[in-house]
């Protein structure tokens, strides 16, 4: 059924089209959007679980547990927000295919990631409860843990791309990876906003 004569009508000659494009043009961008939808749903359900379990208690946090200490979590919030700046630089440098700039900016982001993880260690302690004490402890640890897992995985991803930019061989598609990596990092940072608000302020305000 294929047309026996090949009509090379100019409208469908694609030889002049570029072999790579960034942003919403690229398939990887949509792949990351898919991933973010999945993860976003996951966090939304987790938050719903938090409030569902809260209904079972008259005081929150229950059984005399003090409110979580604000310092480590807030410091982490500030740090993660600040990390958007070097990540923007890496993002833009990636679009312009400037290898050195990507390397430097992502190296900074990797360091920030590790500092954030160190702060996270103190955040778990700031909750003043263990996961196996009651349902409050379980959900709080799970929310912190889930977000931590994301910080770990995207910090490692940053590190991997940093090493790649350093050691090569760099292909153009790695700059689309940088692009996707940045979008994912923004998500990890912005995802922390609601989780931070819930973990630290729901006990105080609700």
């Amino acid at each position, binding site marked *: *059924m*294929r*047309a026996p*004569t*090949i*009509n*090379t009508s100019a*409208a*469908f*000659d*694609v*030889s*002049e*089209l*570029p*072999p*790579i*494009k*960034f*942003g*919403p*043009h*690229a*398939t990887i*961008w*949509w*792949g990351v959007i*898919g*991933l973010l*939808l*999945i993860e976003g*749903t*996951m966090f939304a*359900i987790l938050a719903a*679980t938090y409030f569902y*379990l809260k209904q*079972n*208690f008259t005081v929150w946090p229950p059984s005399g547990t003090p409110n979580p200490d604000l310092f480590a979590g807030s410091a982490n919030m500030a740090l993660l927000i600040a990390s958007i700046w070097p990540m923007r630089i890496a993002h833009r440098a990636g*679009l312009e295919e400037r290898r050195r700039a990507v390397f430097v900016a992502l190296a900074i982001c990797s360091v920030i990631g590790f500092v954030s993880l160190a702060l996270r260690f103190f955040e778990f302690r700031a909750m003043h409860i263990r*996961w*196996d*004490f*009651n*349902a*409050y402890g*379980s*959900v709080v640890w*799970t929310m912190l843990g889930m977000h931590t*897992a994301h910080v770990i995985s995207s910090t*490692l991803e940053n590190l*991997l791309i940093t090493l*790649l930019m350093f050691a*090569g*061989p*760099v*292909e*153009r*598609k*790695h700059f689309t*990876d940088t692009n996707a990596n940045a979008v994912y990092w923004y998500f990890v940072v912005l995802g922390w906003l609601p989780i931070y608000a819930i973990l630290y302020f729901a006990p105080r305000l609700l």
Partner: protein
Amino acid sequence: MTTLAKTGVRDTDLTAAELHAALERVWEPPSGFIGWFKNVFHKPISTRFIFAALGFFALGGVLALLMRLQLAMPENTLLSPDLYNQLFTVHGSTMMFLFAVPVMQAVGLYFVPLMVGTRNLAFPRLNTFGFFVYIIGGVLLWVALFLNIGPDTGWFSYVPLSGPEYSPGKRVDVWAQMITFTELSSLVAAVEIIVTVFKLRAPGMSLNRIPIFVWAQLVTSFMVIFAMPAVMLASAFLAMDRLVDTHFFNPAEGGDALLWQHLFWFFGHPEVYIIFIPATGIVSMLVQTFSRRPIVGYTAIVLSLIATAILGFGLWVHHMFATGLPQLGESFFTAASMLIAIPSGIQIFCWIATLWTGRLLVRTPLLFVAGFIFIFVLGGLTGVMQASVPIDLQVHDTFFVVAHFHYVLIGGAVFPLIGGLYYWFPKMTGRMMSESLGRVNFWIFFIGFNLTFFPMHQLGLAGMPRRVYTYLPQTGWGPLNFVSTIGAFVLSVAVIVFLLNAFVSYRTGALAGENPWGADSLDWSVPSPAPSYNFLYIPTVNSRTPLWTMEPAQPVVTGMRADILEVLVTELHDATPDHRHLLDGPSIWPFLTAVAFGIGVITAIFTAWGVTIGAVLCFITLAGWFWPAGQPIEDTAREAAPPLGERA
């Protein structure tokens, strides 16, 4: 820009025969034993997927036969109560998680690229990863069953029964981790399909020209994205409650058993539509082809699919009527449950109108469509009956429910699936399936199915509860149960006839040619079986039924590279060509990543260290996956910097 056209070998440099040879070289799957694990091409991977899912269907069917044998007579002693519990749990879980959902997605992964006119899925390696993750999950469940640690708390594993207190041992943990594997694989397939449909469509295939099967796959994929996280989280909570003493579902420490039900049915109800919507997509394609006219009400059908998907998420609570929710809530969900009959009704009217006004070609696939419509109307009726709270309370947890969901699942999904396999067999193998055996197959299936499940309605009304391993003679349930068991054996004969037909036809069936049914979609424009690269030239499309309206010299896309794995990326909305894109080639790393993930998740059944071990292993394999192969494609890719305006 002038140097651009000179890079690499272009299709325009070659004659059709040379182009075929060049593309074969590039798109040929790797050979050999190791090559089998490195394959990243959608047709071979989906074929494995379909085979595996049908294999699990057969295994689940064997368990069903065992259960039916046990129930054939009162006070039968073939199966112990404990084994019976394992059998219905593994049967239900296999059918839902290892057969019905994956098989529909597998058919999608096979045919979506062919129908939208491209050469592979958007993320070939990811697809291979998803396949192996699925296999590991399936093998885990079945090995556990053979080791007598098969899950035994039902396919929805309600707490507290499945909690640490009432289910010690590892059975439920196996179930929970099987969920992790299958749902991850399902999410992967969903992302593949969405991006392939959004970005890899042939020029001219604007959104309002996408074949309905592809629409159905797209809508389903979005449902998967919103539904699967709920059950993954729920099963993770369950596993944690059991392994590290969290208290999500433990009321003594402020946890909540109903939380499980909410999370499970937030997934579980959409799940039914995740199975059913692709099936209606198959039905729409078959109705169109065998009526030999464009389907009536394309837009209405697409909107119905979308409406069904959205309503599907509003319905989960109807599984919990018996839990005593607030009155107003119950009324709301009753209304929503009834509302969902409307889009399904619209689709049925469109199909009937198409069949009515078409020139019917009555072949086996169409018989299965007719069987589907018949059964589905019946199953839908009993479903709407249960949407009413009083009736639901009456038949709750009886065989009436078992009858109902088998009517919906087998009538609504297995009939269209088998029809679809008869329909696409020629495209997949190059040969037709036997028509006479096909008709025999249909009638045995139809009769066996009704014989098995119709009596169950009456059994349920007579009070027979589900999930009981036996019953007393005085109940009077014996005769109908016996009939049902006979029916189950008739059903299995039908499955054997199908397998026989497929086997014989694969070797000696009539040669099919490109388009044996005179169908309209792009999958039928290529030779049968489809070549490794799918399309010699990327096609263009000028209507919803491209092959029926094709111009004598319908333009094709030219200027694609013939020496690398290149596909054409188009705009989301109207599919105008945007750029050419180099796909990833074969690699062992997706398989190794699946294994690393598997080791982590299975270890986590026994110790929480599994999470750490899995994470480390996955990091190593993922690094291998994304690390550049060091092939000198740098210069091929370096051929042009994007114009500044194109930066996102």
